[in-house]
């Protein structure tokens, strides 16, 4: 089975003026996104993420190296048939209604007029914009724009969906809804390439990440591996009373293990916000449905300094 995206030794230079100087935006990048992954492409501004995405979308030609989408060179039009793309801060045709815009994109992707209309209603309903479908896109809020953007990206039922900063300028509820949509897409068997500066969101929904800096990939792999703490072991317990903590410390001490930290886990602010406004169902983290209140114990066998909090 061909990977959704396969990039080998990709280099992209941009000429600076008429001289011989060039700006190297991407430098010998190699990436592999398997099917049904939610892959996060991370990096600071100017790290080469957007250039990489444009190469994947066939909008830029690599200076060196190759990029394949489902086994096809990305610069071939056929490679984009299975790709849906949500650009950063999308400005769609403001004079069209949301429905007209999605239908147009469906037709451009090869759907018949009737099928495009049928699919447009499906995806518009799926992203929760049914009531606003006949409104002009120019009247949409940022969150609605992102959602209609996702709808147009999905209208032709692509296998690979590329989302460039999907939550830029969106409020926490909208952001959580988009995260929820991404996870639904994964459940539906789609592959998602996500480019975002919101690392907490990436951590919540991605299963693989690649970190880029100055055009190079400096780290990539499964999220769990990349974020794994080195040397420590974390145990979660239900409401451990103070005397029991001391007993545990003594018990561990007898075995040569330092109990470095005992604390109650912190909720993230976005989670508190969503709970307070009654949207707790949108809270999601990799590997757990939601955060459970309780005690968190961290121990370090080789630790010298022990600390209580």
């Amino acid at each position: 089975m061909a990977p959704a995206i396969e990039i080998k030794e990709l280099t992209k230079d941009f000429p600076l003026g008429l001289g011989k100087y060039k700006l190297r935006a991407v430098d010998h990048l190699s990436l592999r996104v398997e099917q049904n992954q939610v892959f996060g492409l991370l990096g600071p501004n100017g790290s080469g993420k957007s250039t990489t995405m444009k190469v994947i979308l066939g909008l830029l030609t690599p200076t060196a190296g190759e990029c394949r989408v489902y086994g096809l060179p990305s610069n071939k039009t056929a490679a984009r048939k299975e790709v849906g793309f949500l650009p950063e801060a999308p400005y769609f045709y403001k004079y069209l209604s949301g429905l007209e815009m999605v239908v147009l994109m469906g037709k451009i992707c090869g759907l018949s007029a009737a099928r495009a209309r049928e699919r447009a209603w499906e995806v518009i309903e799926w992203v929760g914009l049914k009531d606003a479908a006949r409104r002009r896109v120019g009247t949409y809020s940022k969150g609605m724009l992102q959602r209609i953007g996702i709808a147009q990206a999905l209208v032709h039922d692509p296998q690979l969906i590329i989302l460039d900063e999907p939550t830029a300028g969106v409020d926490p509820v909208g952001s959580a809804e988009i995260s929820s949509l991404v996870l639904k897409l994964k459940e539906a068997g789609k592959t998602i390439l996500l480019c975002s500066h919101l690392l907490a969101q990436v951590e919540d929904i991605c299963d693989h990440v690649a970190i880029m800096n100055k055009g190079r990939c400096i780290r990539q792999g499964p999220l769990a591996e990349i974020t794994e703490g080195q040397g420590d072991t974390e145990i979660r317990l239900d409401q451990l009373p103070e005397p029991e903590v001391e007993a545990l410390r003594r018990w561990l001490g007898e075995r040569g293990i330092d109990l470095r930290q005992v604390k109650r886990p912190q909720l993230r602010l976005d989670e508190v916000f969503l709970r307070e406004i009654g949207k707790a169902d949108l809270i999601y983290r990799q590997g757990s449905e939601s955060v459970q209140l309780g005690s968190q114990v961290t121990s370090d066998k080789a630790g010298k300094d022990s600390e209580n909090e």
Partner: protein
Amino acid sequence: MNSLRIIRLIAGNTFLEAVRQKLFLFLVFIAAAFIVSSFYFRDLDFGFSELKFISDFGFGAIVFFGSILSIAGAAQLFFNEIENRTALTILAKPVRRIEFILGKFTGVWAVVLAFTAMMTLLLMAILWYREGILMGMERFARDFPEGRKVLYGDILWVGFLQWLKFGILISITMIVAGFARTNLFTVVISFFILIICHLQYLARDAWAEIAFWPARMGVAVMGFAFPNFQVFNVGEYVALYEPLPWSVIGSLVGLSAIYIIVYNLLAVVSFRSREI
């Protein structure tokens, strides 16, 4: 077949955007007002030659405002796609750049067709109406011994040929827009080229007298690179009540087809390397 479908979809969307722009409606209104105003110059008592005046004035308005619409419309509709990043959304779909450029061209050309058709029909209506009045006037009755003299079918042909000329102009604008960074630059350069095309006959005339061969070559290249727009001034036939020769129509259709095809291919080449 799929390419034609995509071109049609992009063209349809471009047409929709254009007719919702104020520029299009404004030019339609102004051009129509110009053509209609020629009717009121009868107070100057042109007599029988009044029809020639209305015809010249009407075609002048069509050419002038049609040229503005062709250049400004093509530049605006192209840069809207770039600046609003909608081109990014479209080109990230299975759409080739040639389909995008041809779709934009066709859409703008369709808008100009609507404009030219409306103005030509308006001109025909005014000429028809005024000719009827003149025929009923005793002092001009002898000028119409065999009934109406204006060749209305030929007015349609002249309108059609002007539309072809606008097609060349739109293609030129698309070439410039392909590499230009701003809308203003595109409009200014395209208007310069329009002027060159209108004055190009001077270079052709001078060509025969140039002895210095590099200059002669340069002028010859200019003569082929830029079409001679003077050859599209066929409104005189209508004004003089002479039938438009088929040879003229045929040669202008052929000339337009060649330039439109070549220029659109150049526009695609110009746009191909553009970073979106």
